[in-house]
């Protein structure tokens, strides 16, 4: 089967990814400052940039959700158990033996089953958790009924706990870039948009016929 360079991340997706990455970094940095772990910037500035970054990320996500729904890209995140076990076995064992990654990327399915399940969890659970707790935190004055409501402590606690989980995700996410073909090999597609994908003859024929712009010039 031919291996061709196929554009798997289009412009918006790359913009979304990198902007989101930057905003999450800003949010983690300023958020843990607000929580009181360090004083590298003032509380005032930390809160300001945290709010600006959070609101920007929400706007970005409104666009991203629209994009996922209208382009059908959301299907990339559909969870499946098919092929999940070999991937898990690979990271737990095969990787140390120098085995090949068991998952072959398809142009219509860019994530391996473990990856898809992780991203789905992030998008359906962790992100909503941090947004809703964050919005409740930001808007406490509109629900606490004129008093200093004890629930604020729980809103803040959930928000910070979710932030810890996202930080853990970021660490694993970055670490996994070092596996397989190496860091740059993994990062490059998110910069250029193109990755080497094994195509069946039928797939190649389809792309050449219907989406020729996705195929890199040979």
């Amino acid at each position: 089967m031919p291996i061709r360079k196929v554009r798997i991340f289009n412009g918006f997706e790359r913009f979304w990814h990198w902007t989101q990455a930057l905003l999450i970094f800003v949010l983690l940095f300023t958020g843990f400052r607000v929580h009181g772990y360090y004083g590298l910037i003032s509380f005032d500035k930390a809160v300001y940039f945290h709010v600006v970054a959070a609101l920007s990320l929400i706007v970005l996500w409104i666009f991203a959700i629209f994009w996922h729904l209208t382009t059908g890209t959301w299907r990339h995140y559909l969870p499946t158990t098919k092929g999940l076990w070999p991937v898990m076995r690979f990271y737990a064992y095969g990787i140390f033996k120098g085995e090949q990654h068991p998952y072959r990327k398809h142009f219509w399915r860019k994530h391996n089953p473990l990856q898809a399940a992780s991203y789905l969890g992030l998008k359906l659970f962790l992100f909503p958790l941090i947004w809703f707790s964050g919005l409740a935190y930001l808007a406490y004055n509109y629900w606490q009924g004129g008093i200093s409501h004890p629930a604020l402590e729980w809103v803040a606690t959930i928000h910070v706990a979710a932030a810890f989980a996202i930080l853990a995700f970021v660490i694993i996410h970055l670490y996994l870039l070092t596996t397989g073909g190496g860091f740059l090999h993994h990062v490059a597609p998110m910069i250029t948009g193109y990755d080497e994908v094994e195509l069946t003859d039928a797939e190649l024929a389809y792309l050449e016929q219907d989406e020729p712009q996705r195929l890199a010039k040979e």
Partner: protein
Amino acid sequence: MPGRFRSSFHLFPMLLCLVGLAVARAEPTAQAEQEGGKVELGITEYTDIGVKGGVDNPITALDEDKRRKSTADHTKYKELQGPFSSGPEVTKACLSCHNKAGDQFIHNKHWTWSYKDPETGQQLGKDWLINNFCTNARGNEGMCAQCHAGFNRTSPDYDLTKQENIDCLVCHESTGTYYKLPPSKGNKACAILFEGKPPIDWVKVAQSVRLPARANCGTCHFYGGGGDNVKHGDLSSVLFHPPREVDVHMSEQGENFACIICHVGEGHQWAGSRYNMIAWDEKEHALPKPGMERQTATCESCHGDKPHPFSIRGFKLNDHVDRVACESCHIPATARGGVATKVFWDWRTAGRLKNGVGYREEGYVQGNGEPRHTYKSIKGSFKYGENLVPTYRWFDGKVTYTTIDTVFDPSKPVEINHIEGSPQDPKSRIWPFKRMVTWQPYDKGRNTLVYMHLWGDDEDAFWGNYDFARAIRRGMEENGIPYSGEYGFVKTWSWWPQNHMVAPKEQAVDCDQCHSKNGRLKELAGFYLPGRDSQPWLDWFGLLLVGGTLAGVTGHGLLRILLRGRRG
């Protein structure tokens, strides 16, 4: 012109009268020759009180405004051509035209020294209360009534209906040459207060009247507690000419406000009494009603309840307004500008003598270079503070006082005024206070405070004989208060809300000052404060999760490198 300025005064003569300022006030001699060297006598801190001309006589923006717009020139009135030989004669002349002013004023606290709290039902007012400075005015009117807005109040039996005794001049004159002396001479230790004052030119001061300026109010209110800034912490002689960074409203480089710009009122009743405070003005007074007068002295009555600009930062700051008083952030420290405030007073050491006479010690030099007394035989020992971080407390405006009949537990500090409030109460906000700490006499048998007979030319007055037993017995007897006959000393606290000396906005308290582990609000519990509070388990959870993840990927990575090497 705002309707609240009912009467108008032509202030042109003020210019002429200001020349009077050039006449230096004769300094009373504070020292007397004693055998064995010079011994400082007396209570000369009081010499600034009631003599504003000697301190300063600033012209406020209100003065300038009135001078331009007034339709009356008091120098031309035949009623004010004199001759006058006393204050009451001037007052009669004033009341002959302002024929409702007398009736208005005799219902005012400055005259009655009495206030019944409508909420707590407590009888308050200077005539009744005991504080933890000089303790009680009652029975000591001969000294304390120097700051009564009337003439010759020498006892609690003062005739409150006699309008000619109202002192119009102390509040309204503008020459700076008018002064008030204590109504009676005390003992020898104090008598030097009365020496060397130039006579008052009654006609000149009577013709100089205007709406009260900072000099008028400040002549008493900046000296509460017996000296410059002793009592309040946020009211000192610095406010005659405050630099902008000390008081953005009253500074001549700022708004140059007179006190009555905020302490608005009509008919000789003013807003902004400490006895009944508005701790949260959002609902009642800060609603946007264009052109409407608001008879309150709150910040919100001018600035509204959303004072910060429309922006992300402004939005967050406005979120604070319902929980944090404006003063908490905008008065960054107490006693700024070079004049210290008294923070500790120990009556237990009063009465020490040198060569058989009382003396004073100067042990503190304040910011403006002037010394302050750290010991006086007549009062005991003191400590001072400047640029103090206030003490913050939840406050709902309600204050209950320890009055003469309140029984307390002397093993704990007694709160002279107890402030109420809590984070769970929507009417409470976090307020800044100065806390005054004092050891003062109490009735050991009955566990109540006492009235002391401090001032007088008799043998029982403490300021003369230095004998607590006699001073307390006399003070209690005179007022018909039961007394066990045995006195002790009890530690007391009093709380002084900080409202003045509002700094320019760029000097407001930084967020970190409160939103941090050991910040200004570390003593306040019962609510979640971001940056200060955290569930202890949350930080452990985070450490385990993030630390565990890092350990996991590190171990995974090391294993990969190790095994690859072995294979290689």
